[in-house]
């Protein structure tokens, strides 16, 4: 039985939604990178940080880009045929949140280089998600888990 027959919006999402969100994230972060050092960049990164936080801590249904996708884009597309669990995109949002939060902290403390690096990483991840469907944060998950849960050996 194909997965499409069971779709609970709390646990399942149209795969095109997170990719649409990643594309908007890509545009926002690219604009932030181009304006870094100006107040515009601070606003853009702050907005993106809030978006990531909503997706990670509240849920994809509370994430503004996802809301935009469901209300404006999805009705104009063919019906969804592929669904995925909400867990990977939520985890990706958490990783994105960490990077943009670090960028904001960098800007707040005058460590502009930190902000450049953090935004660049978040941008790369958003691009890989939007263009290739890769969830970089998800792929790093097991390695992170292996390292964090490593038994103490000498």
């Amino acid at each position, binding site marked *: 039985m194909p997965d499409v027959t069971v779709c609970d919006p709390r646990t399942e999402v149209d795969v095109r939604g997170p990719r649409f969100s990643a594309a908007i994230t890509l545009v926002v972060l690219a604009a932030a990178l*181009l304006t*870094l050092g100006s107040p515009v960049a601070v606003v853009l990164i702050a907005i993106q940080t809030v978006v990531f936080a909503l997706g990670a801590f509240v849920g994809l249904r509370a994430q503004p880009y996802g809301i935009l996708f469901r209300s404006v884009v999805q009705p104009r597309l063919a019906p969804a045929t592929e669904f995925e669990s909400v867990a990977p995109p939520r985890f990706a949002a958490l990783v994105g949140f960490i990077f943009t939060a670090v960028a904001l902290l960098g800007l707040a403390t005058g460590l502009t280089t930190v902000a450049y690096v953090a935004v660049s990483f978040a941008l790369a991840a958003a*691009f890989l998600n939007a*263009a*290739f469907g890769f*969830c970089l944060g998800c792929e790093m998950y*097991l390695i992170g888990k292996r390292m964090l849960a490593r038994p103490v050996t000498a």
Partner: protein
Amino acid sequence: MGAGAMLGLVLLVVVLALATAFGLYRRATDGRMRTVAAPVAAPIPVADDAPEVDVTTPTAAEHGGERLTAQVLGADLGAQATLVQFSTAFCQPCRATRRILDEVTTMVPGTSHIEIDAEAHLDLVRQLDIRRTPTVLVLDARGVIAKRAVGLPRKADVIAALGEIIPA
């Protein structure tokens, strides 16, 4: 254009170029079946000399030829071959991988599909050096690891791998 904007533009171009290169490389290599041990040619002259995996003593380097048992995997091996899939909760292609492997094992007699939650088996994950999910191991009738694919494998490649392992 200020120095900041110039730096931002350069960074943007560099990051997008690197990410594109990585994405294309990954797309080209993802899910490819790699042979990690010579396929068993003859109908198994069952010399059970292949080392069993001892989960308590991690070894390094090469994992081809290692033998996994039903006890380690927590499920019975297929009579001819077994597809072992390592998955995590935060894994997009794991579901599609599961679907493909289920289809293949339904189609090819004597094969079974075992899915392992990588997080719950970190010792085994370290032992076999599983770095991301999905990772699929193809075991022969004895449970010896013959092939390994990291990423979503193609159905035809899985079938071909089984064709090499299962004696005609």
